[in-house]
């Protein structure tokens, strides 16, 4: 595979955009730079872009509205990693609601950004989602549960909230994105890697058993996540997107 990932970096600060660009180029990527929304659209129209790194706080059109417009236009399939200025719950939730695939908080390290970019591209390429979940809906229903994809927690039939750890959420998200499809441990490991590359990840089996426990799957009878001997796991429930909080 001689494909070189083409990354579009959109930031109003010239130095940041160039340093990020240089770093990504050194790591074998093709990079285009844009200072604002106009330049971003121009680049998107003239070449194929694999991923957009988008600064949230920009004068004029800010990153959030650019992201929303992207999701409504013809480039809706291009993954977006947001650069947010604050490590704020609200910003993160809004960003994810606007259709961003991930985010990095300023000030970030280039290595962290590269890891995020690689993870998002890997996710998009390895298993193209058969549900446009990330763009389409905040609420996903399966079995007796509802998943709030922005607040990242589960709700039962009574509306009681069951919090998920980051890893549990990522794993559930992968399962939900690919229902009725056998996923190998390697695939799961790749797709659910934590935010930090060097972070200690538990074994997938342990994580799956934790998630099963949360979903109420017993050791014998498994309603949600079934084990496929010597192959991996399959999410066996049908998944329904819910328009709003209903």
């Amino acid at each position, binding site marked *: 595979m001689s494909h070189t990932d083409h990354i579009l970096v959109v930031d109003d*600060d010239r*130095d*940041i955009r160039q*340093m*990020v660009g*240089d*770093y990504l180029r050194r790591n074998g990527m093709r990079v285009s730079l844009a200072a604002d929304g106009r330049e971003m659209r121009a680049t998107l129209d003239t070449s194929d872009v694999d991923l957009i790194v988008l600064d949230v*706080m920009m004068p004029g059109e800010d990153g959030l509205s650019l992201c929303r417009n992207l999701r409504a236009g013809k480039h809706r399939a291009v993954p977006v990693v947001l650069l947010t*200025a*604050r*490590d704020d*719950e*609200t910003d993160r939730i809004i960003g994810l609601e606007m259709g961003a695939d991930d985010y990095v908080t*300023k*000030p*970030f*390290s*280039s*290595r962290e950004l590269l890891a995020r970019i690689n993870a998002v591209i890997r996710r998009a390429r390895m298993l193209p989602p058969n549900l446009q979940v990330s763009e389409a809906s905040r609420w996903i229903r399966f079995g007796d549960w509802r998943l709030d994809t922005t*607040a990242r*927690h589960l709700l039962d039939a*009574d*509306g*009681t*909230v*069951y*919090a*998920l*750890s*980051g*890893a*549990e959420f990522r794993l559930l998200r992968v399962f939900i994105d690919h229902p009725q499809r056998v996923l190998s441990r390697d695939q799961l490991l790749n797709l659910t890697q*934590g935010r*930090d590359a060097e*972070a*200690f*990840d*538990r074994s997938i089996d342990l994580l799956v058993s*934790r998630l099963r426990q*949360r979903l109420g799957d017993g050791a014998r009878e498994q309603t949600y996540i079934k084990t496929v001997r010597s192959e991996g796991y399959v999410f066996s429930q049908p998944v329904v997107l819910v328009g709003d909080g209903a």
Partner: protein
Amino acid sequence: MIPSLRAPWRWRPRTLRSHLVLILGVGLLVAHALSFALLFGERMQATRSMMLRNLYEDVPVSVALLEHLPADQRSAWVNRLERRTYRYLLRPARAGTPLATDRARQVTGLIDDALGHAYVLRPRAVSSMPERYEVELTLRDGRPLTIEVTPAPMPVARWLPWVLAAQIVLLLACVGFAVRLATRPLAQLAAAAGRMDPAGQGAPLPQRGPSEVAQAAQALNLLQTRVAAHVAERTQILAAISHDLQTPITRLRLRVETMEASPEQDKLIGDIDHISQLVREGLDYARGASVRLGPPVRLDLTAFLESVVADYQDEGKAVQIVDRTDVVQQGHPQVLRRILQNLIDNALAYAGAVETRLRIDTTGRTCIDVLDRGPGIPPDQLDAVLKPFHRLEASRGRSTGGTGLGLAIALQLTQAMGGTLRLSNREGGGLQATLSLDDDLQADVQR
């Protein structure tokens, strides 16, 4: 005065209501009593002078009549001569003492005057309760005549005490009503002011009621508007500073990363991380006063604590749950998570290993404990460390890389959410941070 006033005064009026009731009630009762006393005094005076006038006109006629009657017919007439306060007896006066009161002497003198000093009067007091005295004289035929005087006020009408009582009841009812009218809007205002939100997100106070109270409400609303504007401005300034700092810090960080790897580079990156953490937490703290909670959700706290701890465990940190109970309660998961993370981060920085506990305390409140075996905090500093930028000088304060804001933010968020945060030193060393959730987010324990 009243002896109980001298004695240690147990019940002190504290409220405006009791003050008003006391002042108005006692004042009205005293005024009432005074006017009745005056009325009765006047009435007694009038009765008395009437009695004296009657006596003065009556006695000479009666005595002259008895003088003219034959001795055996007198007893038939004395009953007719009897009046309300005196009567005539055909016998000598009973044994008694000399007159004791001026009034008695005055009456005797009056009788003497009325009779034109024609008789020798032998007055004596025969009874003091009721006051009664007898004035003996000798008729011209040598037989004794005694005038028995029993001064008495006019009897009071039956209905009068009832009218008095009714008046007092009416007065006290008016006092109660007036006091209620005055104090209730105040109490309502105080309750509403207590619910006011400094960030100006709550509803303004209702400007109703008596004009004084409405004015106070208006003034408080104005104050709240100013405070809210102030808070908003402060937050805005800090957000602007924070944003403007983030960009140069990001540039700095990216630039340092292009340097050749060296111990110097590591130190620079460490410093930059510290600066950016400070900027971030400073902003968090400034924003904390106006944190938007949103509506609470029904939260499974057990699952919640497990998820927080699992995140730490996935990063390889030594965080554990040592005790848990099943609790479902109203709560704000995002804020709660932030508080717990700050407490756990703090404990990790000082002790390296952390234990957490979910329990119901003896008063029924849900508590989450964060426990460590670190150096603890000197008892006199337990409150101070919750203040922003407070640093301990001893071993606990050094080289942890914290900003001094983590606990302050935790406290601020706890208060915004409705709860209490308490630090205490553990037996055997280490610190315990206890987060208690408010009762109005009532716990219902499952299973």
